[in-house]
């Protein structure tokens, strides 16, 4: 397949026969040209070869990442570097050469040996474009996931490269920030930058890309206009799902304050924070038995801190927390784990076993809850990892590792389960598995999902609780993501 655009100045021209890691083929038979002022989207199921394509396009494969490449990758516009890259995990973007956000963003232009006045101009422009100017003097490792994602974007923009490659750049951004981000990309395109964006968020791709490439099993399945490729029903690849729009999204009854059983989680007048910084202030909320609730809100609003405080990782400065009939406020974390579960954004912090099954067994075995192995196998089936019990957790793709972490928490059978950004990087199939896990948890107690994925929240949750600056500001239905992107 050859793409149009040769009449214009090309920023990328790649002809790939095979890209392999240790003999394992990850991508084959891909031809892709991207011209200046063009946005090309890449979609595909987990393991389809999207990140490999992105890394190859940026010229990073075969250098820091060992891979064998049979084919050519050319950047006719040159540049040092010829492409800027935004990683799926924003912490990967950090070089640690800078102490503050501003210094971290400056690392690229400093490496390009630019005069300090030009570095300053680039840094200020990149921070403004990424809506991160207010973070300039913050320490990067103290930022929330969404804030870090803006810094990652600014760091790439500061390189002023003719080609910008983004690997799931909005996974941790709240919908408004993602819409701002889309606007920033459009203005970059208008200024002549070529953009390659890998996304699981089909709505964002449809709103942003001039054309899309659909990958499946390491090869190109289809290419064309976003709505033609992503909006087909039935979808070209069922693992990816189909594009949603306001028109084709069924209206759903939101269950607010009805059908829920007795209160399962009670948070009364809770205050918490880090050092002098107060994050939660007199927050109260209740979740009924059988409820699955989405905690939504802007980046840095306090959603993850609320989960960590309920889990006991952040001490409550005031207020009480009750689960069922037990006041857990003063219980140590490992005892709280019998009734409360929390799955973090980064599953790599917890995986250590030699097999997937051992990893899932660890929780119930440590807590001496029920029949550990049976519970672990059941949880693995629910999240779609049944049949992969003997695999090494480190060999799983990051979205599958995330589902393994969910299975591991589910197997311990807590009454109240909290998942922090569980759908980041998941395709439609993965999201349906997570939804199944939440349905199972509904019968065992209740659950809360911290998410910026409002479509998932609408599908999987009974209602949204909006957290804003440490308070509950709204309970009920929120806008869907399509609402944000359709404003353009």
């Amino acid at each position, binding site marked *: 397949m050859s793409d149009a655009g040769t009449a214009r100045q090309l920023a990328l021209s790649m002809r790939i026969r095979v890209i392999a890691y240790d003999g394992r083929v990850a991508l084959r038979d891909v031809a892709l040209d991207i011209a200046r002022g063009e946005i090309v989207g890449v979609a595909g199921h987990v393991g389809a070869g999207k990140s490999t394509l992105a890394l190859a396009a940026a010229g990073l494969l075969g250098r820091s990442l060992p891979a064998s490449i049979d084919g050519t990758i050319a950047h006719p516009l040159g540049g040092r570097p010829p492409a800027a890259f935004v990683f799926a995990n924003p912490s990967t973007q950090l070089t640690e050469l800078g*102490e503050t956000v501003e210094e971290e963003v400056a690392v690229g232009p*400093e490496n390009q040996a630019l005069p300090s006045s030009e*570095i300053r101009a680039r840094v200020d422009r990149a921070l403004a474009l990424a809506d991160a100017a207010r973070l300039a003097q913050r320490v990067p490792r103290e930022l929330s996931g969404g804030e870090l994602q803006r810094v990652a974007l600014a760091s790439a923009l500061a390189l002023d490269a003719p080609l910008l490659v983004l690997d799931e750049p909005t996974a941790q951004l709240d919908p408004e920030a993602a819409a701002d981000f889309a606007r920033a990309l459009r203005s970059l395109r208008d200024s002549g930058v070529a953009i390659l964006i890998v996304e699981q968020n089909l709505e964002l791709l449809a709103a942003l890309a001039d054309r899309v490439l659909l990958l499946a099993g390491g090869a190109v399945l289809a290419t064309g206009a976003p709505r033609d490729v992503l909006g087909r029903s039935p979808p070209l690849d069922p693992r990816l799902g189909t594009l949603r729009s306001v028109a084709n999204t069924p209206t759903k009854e939101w269950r607010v304050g009805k059908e829920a059983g007795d209160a399962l989680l009670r948070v009364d007048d809770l205050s918490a924070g880090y050092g002098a910084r107060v994050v939660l202030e007199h927050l109260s909320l209740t979740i009924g038995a059988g409820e699955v609730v989405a905690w939504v809100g802007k980046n840095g609003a306090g959603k993850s801190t609320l989960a960590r405080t309920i889990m006991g990782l952040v001490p409550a400065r005031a207020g009480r927390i009750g689960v069922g009939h037990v006041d857990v406020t003063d219980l140590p974390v*490992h005892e709280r784990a019998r009734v409360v579960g929390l799955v973090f954004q980064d599953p790599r912090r917890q995986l250590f076993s030699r097999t997937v099954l051992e990893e899932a067994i660890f929780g119930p075995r440590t807590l001496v809850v029920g029949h550990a192995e049976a519970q672990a196998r059941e949880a693995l089936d629910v999240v779609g990892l049944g049949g992969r019990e003997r695999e090494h957790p480190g060999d799983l793709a990051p979205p599958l590792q995330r589902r393994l972490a969910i299975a591991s928490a589910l197997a311990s059978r807590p009454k109240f389960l909290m998942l922090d950004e569980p759908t980041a990087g998941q395709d439609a199939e993965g999201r349906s598995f997570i939804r199944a896990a939440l349905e199972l948890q509904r019968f065992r107690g209740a659950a809360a999902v911290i998410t910026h994925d409002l479509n998932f929240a609408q599908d999987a949750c009974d209602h949204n609780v909006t957290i804003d600056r440490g308070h509950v500001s709204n309970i009920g239905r929120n806008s869907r993501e399509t609402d944000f992107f359709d404003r353009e």
Partner: protein
Amino acid sequence: MTCGLARWNPITPLAGAIAMVLVAFVGPQPWTPAAVLATALAIAFASRIGWKVSALTALVVVPTFVLLVLLDAAFPDAAAEHARWIPSRAGTVDALAISLRLGAAIAALGVIVVGVAPRRLTRALAARGLPSWAAYLVIASLEAVPDARRRADDVIDAQRCRGVAMGKGTGVRGRLRALPALAGPLIVGLVTESEERALALDARAFEPRAKRTALEPIADPASERRARRVIWLALAGVIAWRLWEFAHSLTIAT
């Protein structure tokens, strides 16, 4: 609270510290290292980092002194007049001299370690020709311990959520049982993080041997350049004086 050294070009305090260490070792004992130690601590307190530098110095000097005195008492010379386990005067003076030299070096360099931001120091050194790879190595080494601690905290949090008991009241058996759950992700994290860091540097146009510039170049005013010349001249003077004394003593001996 900002350290008083922040207004200097980091090269100047570094030059001062190196000179002080050399003077402490080549000057007459034990008064020169004592004077250097006092000067370094005075600078540390003036820079509002006195307690940290004092604690760092004491942590090394006090055990060294005690150990040397104990060794002298435990293994006296065959010709010694004092009894075993009673420290000799000469041995104590020697232990004091060695400890003071060590203390002077620790205090002088401690002022740099505690008071000068490593990234600022490497930026100043890079402006004077330090290669990018060496600057990165310095920063990565200095950040290794806090980085590992942060990662360990994350891993501990994740495993506590899965029921692993940590902290007070956890017996030896419990700690041993928790070890694989803590060490596994930590070790894997260290490996993957180094790969990720290499990728991050590559993605940001980092070339190990290429020249880098700075967002905010560190000023090096003429007054500081003069001060450094004075420091090097003074050091050369002390070394010349001690060499002359040494040569003179050899002449007398012959």
